[in-house]
C-alpha cells in the first residue's frame, strides 16, 4: 500500500511540474527552465522548514513566490529569443541553477548535527513530515489537494479570456500583437505562473523525498516537464494528468516486470505516441467527444 501511495506522491509532483510547463507552452514557448524553478522551490521551501522552522504551507507559499519572481526576471531576457534559441537559453538557466546548488553551502548547527544544504552532498535533513507525524497517506492526500487546486485554477483560466489570449499568442504572435496584445506581458506572465507552480512542485518534492541534491534537477527532469503536456495534449489540463499517468504509472511502474526492456520501450512508446497522436493523447477532438459523452446529451 505504501508503495502505491508513494507512487501517487511522485505522480502528484510530476503533474504539477507538467502543469508548470503547460502554462508556458500555451504561449508557444518551449521552456526547459522548469527544472530550475523546481530546484529553487525545493531548496527555498526546505530551508524555511528545516533552518527557520516555518510551517510547511507558509514555506510552500514563499517557495512558490521566489520561484515565480525568478521566472519573471529570467523571462524578460529569455523571451527575447524564440524557438530553439529559447530552448537553449532555458537549458542554460536550469544548468546554472543546478550548478549553483552544487556549490551552495549553508549549514547551521542543530544540536550536535549540522543541517542545511551542503553542495554536492545535497540537503539531507528535511524531516518535516515524519517529525509532525504525517503518514504517507496524509502526504499523498495533501499533495493531490494542491494538485487539484492548481488544476482547478488552470482549468478556469483556460476557459477565461486570459486563457484565450495565451493560446492566441501561442498560435500567431504577429496576429496577437495586431489584436492589441502585449506579447512581453503575456509571455512573462505565463512564465511567472509556470515558475510559481514549479516552485510548489519543488517544495512538495523536497519534503516527501527528505533529501534533495543538485542531481535531482537536471535537463532530463526539465524534458519530462515539457513531455507531459506535449504527450498529453495542450487542449486541456487533463492531458497533462493523463500523460503523467501514462509515463509514471504505466511506463515506469506498470512495465516494471519487463526489467531492462522497459527502458527501451519507454523511448519507443513516446516516438509511437507522437506518430499516432501528434497533438497529444487528449487532443481537442478527443476532449470534445469526451465532453459529449459525460456532459449534456444533445439531440
Amino acid at each position, binding site marked *: 500500500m505504501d508503495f502505491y501511495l508513494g507512487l501517487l506522491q511522485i505522480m502528484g509532483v510530476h503533474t504539477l511540474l507538467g502543469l508548470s510547463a503547460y502554462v508556458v507552452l500555451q504561449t508557444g514557448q518551449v521552456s526547459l527552465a522548469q527544472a530550475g524553478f523546481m530546484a529553487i522551490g525545493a531548496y527555498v521551501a526546505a530551508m524555511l522548514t528545516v533552518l527557520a522552522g516555518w510551517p510547511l504551507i507558509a514555506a510552500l507559499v514563499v517557495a512558490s513566490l521566489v520561484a515565480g519572481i525568478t521566472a519573471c526576471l529570467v523571462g524578460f531576457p529569455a523571451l527575447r529569443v524564440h524557438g530553439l534559441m529559447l530552448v537553449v537559453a532555458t537549458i542554460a538557466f536550469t544548468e546554472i541553477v543546478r550548478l549553483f546548488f552544487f556549490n551552495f553551502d549553508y549549514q547551521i548547527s542543530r544540536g550536535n548535527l549540522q543541517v542545511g544544504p551542503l553542495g554536492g552532498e545535497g540537503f539531507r535533513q528535511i524531516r518535516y513530515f515524519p517529525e509532525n507525524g504525517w503518514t504517507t497517506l496524509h502526504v499523498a492526500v495533501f499533495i493531490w489537494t494542491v494538485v487539484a487546486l492548481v488544476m482547478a485554477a488552470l482549468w478556469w483560466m483556460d476557459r477565461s479570456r486570459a486563457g484565450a489570449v495565451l493560446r492566441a499568442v501561442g498560435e500567431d504572435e504577429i496576429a496577437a*500583437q495586431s489584436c492589441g496584445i502585449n506579447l512581453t506581458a503575456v509571455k512573462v506572465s505565463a512564465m511567472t505562473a509556470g515558475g510559481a507552480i514549479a516552485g510548489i512542485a519543488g517544495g512538495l518534492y523536497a519534503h516527501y523525498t527528505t533529501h534533495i541534491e543538485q542531481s535531482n534537477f537536471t535537463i532530463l527532469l526539465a524534458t519530462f516537464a515539457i513531455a507531459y503536456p506535449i504527450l498529453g495534449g495542450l487542449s486541456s489540463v487533463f492531458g497533462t494528468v493523463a500523460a503523467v499517468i501514462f509515463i509514471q504509472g504505466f511506463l515506469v511502474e506498470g512495465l516494471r516486470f519487463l526489467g531492462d526492456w522497459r527502458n527501451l520501450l519507454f523511448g519507443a512508446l513516446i516516438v509511437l505516441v507522437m506518430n499516432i497522436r501528434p497533438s497529444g493523447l487528449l487532443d481537442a477532438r478527443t476532449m470534445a467527444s469526451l465532453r459529449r459523452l459525460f456532459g449534456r446529451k444533445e439531440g
Partner: protein
Amino acid sequence: MLELANLSKHFGGVRAVDSLNLKIEPGQIFGLIGPNGSGKSTTVNLITGLLDVTHGSITLAGEEITRLPTHVRLSSGIARTFQNIRLFGQLTVWQNLWVAENARAQRERTNFFSRWMGGDRGARARITRALEFSGLADKADELAANLAFGEQRRLELARALAAEPKLLLLDEPAAGMNPEEIGALDDRIRQIRDSGITVLLIEHHMELIMAIADRIAVLNFGQKIAEGTPAEVQAHPAVREAYLGTAG
C-alpha cells in the same frame, strides 16, 4: 484621422517606402493602390508598428504614434486584417473575437475581472454584433481553422471590428473572393464607414476600390505618384504609366 509625414522605410539600400505623405480624413474610405512591390504592405506594417520607421512620422487623431509599440497602437484605435489570413486557428470563432475585444476593454480600463476572466455583458453583446454583421453567428463555436476560406476572411474582419477601432486597415480583403462575395464585402465596407470608422483599403481589385473609395493614393517604388478621387486618379498619366508601362 491618420497622417503620414515624410514616412520612409529603407531595407539596406532598398527604399521600400520613400518620403510618403498621406492625410486621411475621418469617415473616409481611403484607397491605397499600386503595382506589386510598390510598398503598400510595408506602409501598413509601418502604421501598425510591425516594422520600425527609418524616418518620418505617423500621427493618429492628432497624437504621434511613430515610436509606440504595436500592441499599444492597436489597442488605442487601429485594427487591421492581413493579406494572407492570420487567424488563431485552434481557437473558436467566438474566442478569436474575445481576444481582440480585449483591446477595447484595455482602452476603457475595464476592471481586471471582466478584462481577463468573465467578460462583461457589454463585451458579449459587442462580439455577438460583430459576428452577426459578418454572417458568422451560427459558427461561434467552430474552430477558426475549420472555416471555409470566405468565412475566414469574414472572421478576420469581424475580429478587427470587435476591438471597435477608429481606423481600420484592410490589406487586400478581396483577394481570392468570387464576385458575389466581393459584392457583400463592398456593402460591409460601406456600412463600416457609415458607422463612423475610417477605412484604409489596400486592394488590387480595381473595380471594388474605384467603386467605394472616397479618395485614392497610388504608390510606385515606394513613392506616391498620384492622389485624388477615383476619377482623378484613373485619368492621371503617371498612374497609367505605372500600371501599363507606357505613357498615354
